[in-house]
């Protein structure tokens, strides 16, 4: 049986490190933390080391810490850190861990969070490492799906857009294997889910389908997870422009959808969801961004050993 102690002092590097029962424990904790404010984290300091731009992840973490009475230090871009002077991530982590209780790290290179965890004596949370993983986004996505649909098990979930570089998709697809979800992957050939991910799905015996036609995939979806084409991961800008508008979800396409479909997007959105969809009753992407605070409040409190008073 999972308890709050199972999270104490733990690194959060990839979703693969969390079992189904631990994930459900975290989602239950997020429910309980949603309305909690106060001084639970009084005197605790969380460092946000963001070597790459972020709006939702960083601000929702800072909001979570602030609402629980803790404080944040850190930087929001590499240019204002000592990295600009040539300092390694390892050295930055060794220094900053002396100023705080928890490290939140985002970096454009894959595997940076694991490297940081090797050098840090305090918990490290991966807030996105290149195209690799973004586990707390996955926790938020799972929370949103359960909250909006009432369950996760057995749902038909359609992912569409940049499945090659979208780390939110990589993490969520991986974790959905624990919930017997039926996965459909919609992407142009160039932006398909990477081979390792497909192989992992095969090895776990997960049913999935690959398609290129969004309209054909929409009618069966309980959840439609749209993603932005990740411009920053393309080395050739012409290649990016070729795929930027690969899919645009609009009300016309949604006419063929189940009435209870839930539309998600990790945001920011560019052209992949027309703004006319924003008022659709099941367009849940802004609520998804807001749920991030509850999930991150629960996670931080668990990692720092302050959750038991609430749970």
């Amino acid at each position, binding site marked *: 049986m999972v308890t709050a102690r199972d999270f104490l002092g733990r690194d959060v590097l990839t979703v693969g490190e969390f079992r189904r029962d631990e994930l459900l424990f975290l989602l239950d904790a997020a429910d309980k933390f949603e309305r909690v404010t106060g001084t639970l984290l009084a005197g605790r300091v969380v460092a946000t080391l963001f070597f790459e731009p972020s709006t939702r992840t960083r601000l929702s973490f800072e909001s979570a810490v602030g609402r629980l009475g803790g404080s944040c230090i850190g930087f929001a871009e590499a240019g204002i850190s000592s990295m600009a002077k040539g300092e390694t991530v390892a050295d930055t982590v060794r220094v900053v861990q002396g100023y705080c209780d928890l490290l939140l790290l985002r*970096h454009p290179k*894959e*595997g940076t969070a694991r*490297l940081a965890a090797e050098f840090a004596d305090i918990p490290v949370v991966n807030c996105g490492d*290149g195209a690799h993983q973004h586990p707390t986004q996955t926790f938020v996505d799972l929370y949103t799906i359960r909250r909006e649909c009432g369950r996760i098990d057995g749902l038909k979930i359609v992912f569409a857009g940049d499945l090659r570089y979208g780390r939110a998709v990589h993490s969520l697809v991986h974790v959905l294997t624990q919930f017997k979800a039926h996965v459909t992957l919609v992407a142009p050939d160039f932006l398909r889910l990477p081979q390792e991910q497909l192989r992992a799905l095969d090895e776990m015996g997960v049913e999935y389908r690959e398609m290129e036609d969004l309209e054909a995939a929409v009618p069966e979806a309980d959840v439609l997870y749209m993603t932005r084409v990740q411009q920053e991961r393309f080395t050739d800008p012409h290649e990016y422009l070729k795929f930027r508008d690969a899919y645009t979800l609009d009300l016309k396409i949604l006419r063929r959808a189940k009435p209870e479909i839930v539309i998600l997007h990790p945001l920011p959105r560019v052209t992949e969801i027309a703004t006319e969809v924003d008022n659709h009753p099941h367009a849940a992407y802004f609520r998804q961004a807001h749920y991030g605070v509850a999930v991150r409040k629960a996670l931080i409190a668990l990692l720092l050993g302050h959750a038991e008073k609430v749970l």
Partner: protein
Amino acid sequence: MIQPQELTTHDEESPLMPKPTQQVAKLKQGTVLDHLRAGTGLRCLRVLKLPPGTTVLVGINLTSKSHGKKDLVKIERYELSEAEAAKVALISPDATISIIRDYKVVGKHGLHPPIAFRGLLRCTNPACIVHTERIAGSFVVESRDPLTVRCDYCERSITADQFEFA
């Protein structure tokens, strides 16, 4: 010093190898890598980066009872370290290594790729943090057949044909 004697291979079927009358080099001291997968002998040598001037005997596509074809490498006056043997194992997982001292085999065993290791390979993912931090790659063996390793940092899987040795 290499002396002309029967080749001390363990496979007697190779045309380049041992008939009782055939005189080929026998090591006084050094290392014999046998049962290397055919076509991997020269790659092993490239990866090992032996000291300049080292005397080496290479047999390519020798007939082997157990493997059909094999390569063989004899290295004079040089005993491979564990790390070097591990590199060979990553290229040719079924090979054997024999350490020779004073013409006698003092140690012989099959090579097995390590379960987890650091520093032998470079991650082939250009976006992996190991390249910017200039740290040694760290890997776990994901599958032995076909040999595939996974980078501990970026979790990219790398198959044997893609290996870049450090």
